[in-house]
């Protein structure tokens, strides 16, 4: 399984020379299975450059949305696979008690916000409420669990050949905790992330910034590191970078956390284009 980061930014795309190192595209991660299966985690603006790499022989792609905030779906209408006749495109998203996923996505993928209606797309598009449990996509084991973030939001764990990638791009497990991290059974995302070979986790804020954003659904980098340590992750990748943070700030945040604590795992700054082979 190969994991490639196509968009690491949170909240809003932040292109420009000052963010070229970590990247300006919003959340999108490619997970490529051993048999060539393609799972795409979130459809932020990073899905557009990913589109350019699609194999012409590809017959199926699965897009797994963590939630429907704009920075995670903004690229969906620009995913080239949607315009490829006959390509099976499966989009998975968290369930709602009121509206089907199609109706919720159609709020964006329809005029006046977008010129094309979903029903006019030439691909074979299927939308699924993601099961809040273990399921399988093309032989890859997937688990989705609701996690702490405003509105229904899931994280994903993908297992293949004994290796696991966990994706928690928008996650505030420290919210309301008296002492963080709490016991494992009272920690959001614990089961999903336990023992992950690679944990891609929300690290939007510095500790100082987090104080002013409690309840916004995101983590400070030290909280994310504490979470990674709690779940015994083998490697943690920073993600969902604040659009106000340029490359120098992001590099300094990672350096600071590396210096502050001796950790039993590596903390890697999540940069657009990075690939991790598991």
């Amino acid at each position, binding site marked *: 399984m190969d994991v490639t980061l196509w968009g690491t930014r949170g909240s809003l795309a932040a292109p420009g020379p000052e963010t070229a190192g970590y990247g300006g595209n919003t959340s999108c991660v490619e997970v490529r299975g051993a048999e060539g299966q393609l799972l795409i985690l979130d459809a932020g603006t990073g899905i557009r450059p990913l589109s350019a790499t699609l194999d012409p022989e590809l017959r199926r792609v699965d897009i797994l949305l963590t939630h429907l905030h704009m920075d995670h779906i903004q690229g969906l209408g620009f995913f080239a696979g949607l315009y490829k006749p006959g390509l099976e495109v499966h989009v998975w998203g968290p*369930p*709602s008690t009121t509206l089907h996923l199609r109706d919720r996505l159609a709020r964006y993928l329809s005029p006046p916000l977008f010129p094309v209606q979903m029903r006019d797309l030439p691909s074979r598009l299927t939308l699924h409420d993601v099961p*809040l449990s273990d399921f399988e996509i093309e032989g890859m084991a997937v688990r989705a669990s609701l996690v*702490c973030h405003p509105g229904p939001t899931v994280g994903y764990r993908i297992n293949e050949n004994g290796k696991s990638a966990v994706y928690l791009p928008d996650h505030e497990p420290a*919210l*309301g905790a008296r002492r963080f991290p709490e016991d494992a059974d*009272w*920690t959001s995302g614990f*089961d999903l992330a336990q023992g992950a070979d690679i944990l891609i986790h929300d690290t939007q804020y510095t500790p100082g910034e987090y104080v002013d954003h409690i309840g916004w659904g995101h983590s400070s980098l030290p909280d994310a590191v504490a979470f990674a340590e709690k779940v015994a992750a083998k490697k943690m990748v920073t993600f969902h970078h604040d659009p106000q943070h340029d490359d120098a700030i992001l590099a300094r945040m990672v350096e600071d956390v590396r210096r502050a604590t001796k950790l039993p795992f590596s903390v890697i700054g999540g940069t657009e284009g990075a690939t991790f082979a598991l």
Partner: protein
Amino acid sequence: MPQQPIELILTRQWASYLAVPVWLMSENGHLVYYNEPAEAVLGRRFDEAGEMPAEELATIFQTTSEDGSRLDSDSLPVNIALLERRPAHLRHRFRALDGQWRLVDVSAFPIEGQGGRHLGAVAIFWEVEPGAEG
């Protein structure tokens, strides 16, 4: 122990900040948390009491109706919320962990998660009169 559903985690965190007594039960009926104000009503700190399995709750907390007559456990608000998945309210007496009988108003409601998942119940206690020696 497996991780609790996010809805229970957030309910526990919410309860931990409230000044009203709150009791939280998991889907299988275990008492998994009560907050600090509830400790005064239930008669023991949660850190000391710990989680309590469903099958022991009826013996740990004896209950009667307001006038002291026998009360069927199925009519307790928390059991209605848990088993019938609807809100309920009742004034009744119960013997707390410190051995005192207390008269309480109890309101309970089920915790229903996205995707039709029944996750447990929340009960809020209001002590009507101070405890009397049992």
